[in-house]
């Protein structure tokens, strides 16, 4: 039904474009001067066809379900049902009307399913009638305006400009969506769990918070010592630290070598090869860490008499470090190449060797940019999910031993939310609270890093 209507409206749009243009040619043939190119007359008409259709379709999409629900449930209104029960009845009605209901069919529900179906069909047909009549009216109005040869280019361009502007709001809307999706669950979480316990508690056992029925959910004593996030934050930063211990020396040195020493031929091949490391999906790194690096480290440790967990922080952090190498190397390469040649020439003229120039002149000059690139790398490491989920432990141990297993924010979010979730359960909300803290931490890192890099760029431009 909807798709037929939609196709019809699209066809109508094309026809009105065609008629608008044709009208322009007839006006032209009467030796009158056109106010715009003929196709603008067509666009003008087509826009007058598209806008009302769009508005009515969206109004219907927003209000139809609510109104239908209200009407269907009005039969039950004075029977003393709770809101939740009414919702359940409505869900049953809907699934029965789709023929997917498996439970016991009561005559009440059967009746409301019939009512639901008839209301839906009324809504659909009235939508079709309203859309078509309004489109015809608005196209007729626009056609009249065209016939009097009034301006068409300006309104069309204004409309396009509005479309462009709306598209540019998408980024803001996404940010708002992120904050919106995180904040409500987080607030609900902190209503049950005090903020203090979350930030300073040292025990994290979300599995303990398994709610059997709703009476238990309201008992806060059940959650004491369950959602203390310190081990998770510690684990996150610890694994990120190990990753940076691998990534910074290798990334930075290869960036310096590529920028200062490498011949153009080496650069041409080595740079894209290193960047392949950045293009490999993280789940692949996770598999590599879990299957190869973890067991390898365990064997190595055993042969040296050390006890190494197969899911050690070292394996996850090390592989994560390999993943981050290209970010640091290519960013620091860019930063170093943008240091002005005059600084180098000055240093060489004083008799400094190449490495002395790099260490004493170029590196200090490029430092802000390099720090920025390292901060971006850290933010990547903190937000990295799949490597940790697959290669590091899932139990949150508070430890600083790289050979033991720890867990991170991202791994806990996945562990909690994999499978079915019940919204309103503190365990689910805990995942959103963790997501919120992850978002805030990475946001701060990103803002600082982007600022630093931008300032640095301006300095040498």
């Amino acid at each position, binding site marked *: 039904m909807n798709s037929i209507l939609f196709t019809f409206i699209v066809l109508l749009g094309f026809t009105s474009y065609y008629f608008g243009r044709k009208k322009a040619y007839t006006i032209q043939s009467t030796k009158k001067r056109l106010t715009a190119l003929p196709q603008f007359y067509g666009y003008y008409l087509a826009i007058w066809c598209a806008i009302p259709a769009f508005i009515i379709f969206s109004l219907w999409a927003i209000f139809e379900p609510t109104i239908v629900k209200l009407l269907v449930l009005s039969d039950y209104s004075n029977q003393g049902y709770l809101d939740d029960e009414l919702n359940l009845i409505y869900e049953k009605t809907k699934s029965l009307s789709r023929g997917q209901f498996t439970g016991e069919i009561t005559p009440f529900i059967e009746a409301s399913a019939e009512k639901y179906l008839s209301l839906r069909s009324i809504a659909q047909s009235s939508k079709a009638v309203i859309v078509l009549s309004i489109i015809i009216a608005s196209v007729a109005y626009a056609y009249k305006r065209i016939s009097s040869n009034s301006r068409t280019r300006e309104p069309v361009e204004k409309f396009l400009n509005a479309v462009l502007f709306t598209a540019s709001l998408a980024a803001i809307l996404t940010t708002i969506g992120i904050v919106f999706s995180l904040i409500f669950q987080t607030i609900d979480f902190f209503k049950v769990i005090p903020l203090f316990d979350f930030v300073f508690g040292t025990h994290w056992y979300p599995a303990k918070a398994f709610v059997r029925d709703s009476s238990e959910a309201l008992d806060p004593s059940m959650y004491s010592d369950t959602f203390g996030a310190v081990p998770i934050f510690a684990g996150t930063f610890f694994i990120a630290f190990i990753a940076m211990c691998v990534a910074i020396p290798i990334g930075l040195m290869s960036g310096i070598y590529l920028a200062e020493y490498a011949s153009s031929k080496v650069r041409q091949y080595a740079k894209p090869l290193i960047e392949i490391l950045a293009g490999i999906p993280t789940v692949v790194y996770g598999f*590599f860490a879990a299957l190869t690096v973890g067991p390898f480290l365990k064997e190595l440790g055993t042969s040296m008499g050390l006890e190494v967990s197969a899911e050690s922080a070292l394996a996850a952090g090390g592989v994560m470090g390999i993943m981050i190498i290209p970010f640091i190397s290519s960013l620091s390469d860019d930063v170093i190449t943008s240091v002005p040649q005059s600084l180098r020439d000055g240093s060489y003229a004083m008799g400094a060797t190449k490495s002395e120039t790099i260490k004493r002149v170029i590196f200090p000059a490029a430092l802000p940019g390099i720090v920025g690139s390292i901060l971006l790398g850290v933010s990547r490491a903190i*937000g990295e999910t799949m490597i940790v989920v697959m290669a590091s432990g899932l139990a949150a141990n508070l430890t600083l031993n790289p050979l033991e297993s720890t867990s991170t924010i991202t791994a806990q979010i996945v562990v909690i939310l994999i499978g079915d979730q019940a919204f309103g359960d503190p365990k689910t909300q805990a995942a959103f609270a963790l997501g919120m803290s992850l978002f805030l931490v990475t946001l701060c890192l990103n803002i600082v890093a982007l600022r630093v890099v931008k300032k640095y760029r301006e300095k040498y431009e």
Partner: protein
Amino acid sequence: MNKSKEQLLNKRYKAEQRFRLYGLSAIFMALLFLTIFIFKIFSTGYSAFQKTWLIVPVTFDAELMMLEQNPSNEDLQDADYYDIALKSMADLDPNANEDQENELKRMVSYFFEKEIKNELLNNPGLIGKTKEVYLTASDDLDQVFKGNYPRDLPEDQRRVSDYQLKIFDQLVAKGKVESKFNISFFTYADSREPELAGIASSFMGSIFSILVCLMIAFPVAVLAAIYLEEFAPKNRFTDFIEVNINNLAAVPSIVFGLLGLGVLLAIFHLPRSTPLVGGITLSLMTLPTIIIAARASLKAVPPSIREAALAMGASRMQTTMHHTVPLSMPGTLSGTIIGLAQALGETAPLILIGMVAFVNTIPGSPMDPAASLPVQIYIWAESAERGFVEKVSACIMVLLGFLIIMNLFAQIIRHKFEKKWS
């Protein structure tokens, strides 16, 4: 005095060489990691492209199949194949007792009944005759045949019994075990049994998600980039949009998964586990990447083009739409492909919106539940069966292949079609 000067100089030259060596070894290390990585994936994965078949003589006994004389095609469809399938496996060892018959049955996949049925449907004249039929070997025997399974373990630690191995070795000696290219890896959906698991369902899931992602992200991002680069006034608000875009590009992907879960599933009630929701989530992630690429390539179009068009009397909108945007398209497209390649490899957000559900049907539209290739890698990597290890590596090879093709495509577009302004 002179000598110490020379010593100092030598020291400095040595330091120079050392520094250079550090740089070289850093690059060498990075490339070494890459090589180990690729070698490891290929060495564990290549065997998954082969599949082991047992060639078993099957007697198509009409009585056992409950078939009457001159059966129609429908009769053949409905016939009972289980008994002849069981019998032909049991016949491998005439002296087998009941337990051993059960073990014999477990030497092939549970599709053996269907495989025998297909053989007969393709050639109805076989009724009453005996023919050798190719049956998929169980994944343990598959691994034994490929040499990935240690045979010298004590029997109670192996999933293959000594008896099964004995019969299997007899079959090998008779040349009745064959390894052929594993087509079912590409045509079957996911399965709990490694020998029957394929990537068709997750592949289609990936394709659908990427298409949804492209259809949403590309138009919105290009329009946004045009506005920001060509029309936006320089003010606080556009600065704010720009900061937003740059930050979104660095937000961890799992946060987008939480967005999909909290908004798309919980508020808009879109169907869970579907490529539709996955695609929308991924499109929000790729949006900033494409916007940044599109803006960069719009910026690279020299102002003289715009000035010439304006001087000929074109409006700003006409200048942009007829001249600037077409000239910037190669750069935008290659940025889009790179963004899509990133989205194709993304796992965490898809796990959160439920695309990890076990799906054993091949999805036909973006509204059907599905997995995606990276999620399939995750699901298989978490499974205990030995047969999945090589499947994971093979799936990784397919995924990397796609990523390489997409990136090459982006390079070609950039080099072939982009105008160099000098």
